[in-house]
């Protein structure tokens, strides 16, 4: 039984760790696509200024597939770049065109630049070995003396006042709470319809209850406009800023 259960776990464990960590491809052999490319060029003893792109691209692809690196974006990006340069090299050059932009130029520039970096790395490596072989006087920071935990000697009122102090510090000033409240236009339509069923005329203040919340006022306003649009009522405002009158639209009723 144990055996069976054990066989089940490793695969799930692998999946978990792979998902929780960032996927980083770093081979001991190559520190990146440029490194791999340089090593191919070196192995083949190729002139860096005249790279046979087709051959190198092919080898690069072969290497990253044998290295099981297909998923590594950085290597794939370089592979794509090589294939693109290969394609550009195949384009026929126009007759009489004196300036030819070598599609490999940018790659050559990057390779040369990267080679410089490798050169500096050699210097740094030598220097660091030199330093690693020597020790400075070790300075150990005095460990902080942690207070020994003993029984707490404190009275209940002291404890409560301490809690109070902490809470008062912890309490954030209450400024304003925004409570999202949906408008209830359907409900308001119901109210207006019920009112108009018994009365042909009404005023704004008949519809809006006293001490109405802003959301109620807005709901009613929208309900009135909606009903006016539907032709169930007509709104009339005798003069600017006056309370408007609500009339049941008898013409629509007749229809």
């Amino acid at each position, binding site marked *: 039984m144990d055996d069976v259960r054990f066989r089940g776990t490793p695969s799930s464990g692998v999946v978990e760790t792979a998902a929780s960590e*960032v996927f*980083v491809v*770093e081979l001991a052999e190559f*520190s*990146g*696509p*440029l*490194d791999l490319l*340089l090593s191919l*060029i*070196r192995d083949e*003893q190729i*002139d*860096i*200024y005249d790279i046979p792109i087709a051959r190198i691209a092919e080898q690069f692809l072969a290497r990253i597939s044998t290295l099981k690196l297909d998923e590594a974006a*950085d290597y794939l*990006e*370089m592979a794509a770049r090589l294939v693109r340069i290969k394609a550009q090299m195949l384009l026929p050059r126009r007759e009489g065109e004196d300036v030819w*932009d*070598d599609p490999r*130029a*940018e790659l*050559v*520039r*990057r390779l*040369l*630049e*990267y*080679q*410089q*970096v*490798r*050169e*500096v*790395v050699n*210097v*740094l*490596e030598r*220097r*660091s070995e*030199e*330093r*690693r*072989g*020597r*020790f*400075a*006087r*070790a*300075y150990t920071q005095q460990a902080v003396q942690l207070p020994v935990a003993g029984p707490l000697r404190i009275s209940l009122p002291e404890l409560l006042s301490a809690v109070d102090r902490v809470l008062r510090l912890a309490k954030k000033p209450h400024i304003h709470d925004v409570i999202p409240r949906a408008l209830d236009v359907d409900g308001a339509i119901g109210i207006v319809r019920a009112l108009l069923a018994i009365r042909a005329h009404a005023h704004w203040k008949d519809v809006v209850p006293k001490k109405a919340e802003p959301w109620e006022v807005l709901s009613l306003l929208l309900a009135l406009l909606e009903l006016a649009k539907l032709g169930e009522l007509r709104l009339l405002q005798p003069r600017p800023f006056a309370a408007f009158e609500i009339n049941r639209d008898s013409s629509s009723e007749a229809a």
Partner: protein
Amino acid sequence: MTPLAKLLEAALFASAVPVPADALRVMAAHADDGESTLESALAELRDHYDNEGHGVELIEVAGGWQILTRPEYTEAIERAQLAARPQRLSAAALETLAIIAYRQPIGRAEIEEIRGVGAGAILKSLNERGLIDITGRGEGLGRPLLYGTTPSFLEQFALRHLEELPRADELAIALRAPRPATPTSVATTKDNGEAPPRAD
């Protein structure tokens, strides 16, 4: 030894990190040892260690001075577990460090452009090891963080100052100007007969 040389020895012994030359100069001024200057006292101390058979030596590093054990005793010290050599950095970390050392202050995108590989994790670990630090923010989109090397970098790579790294024109291939080179400039480099890559 002169009084000043002895004072400097004590000061350097007391410190775990290189003592900046300025700090030593202040000490020397206070000591008021009429007959010796800071330079002569340091030279005297160095000669003392070198010529009279000592297990330590005086090293000038990171803009200061430090007493270090001699390399021939490293193995024995390490075997006795009194001290341990720091871990070597990976090739990727060294490349990143090299780029920062030459191009600082430099943003992550530019480092990635040169190496052709993402640099996030490496920058973080170099920063944790105290070799690089954030020195500011760039002008570009999103105001990227800019990195530079720290004094600890100089110390761990036994450099007195950054200028001790080979100058760009001393490298087999001259370090390009920060602006992107044009195809013509690549051609020029070739025409100048600059050393082509060694085929080793």
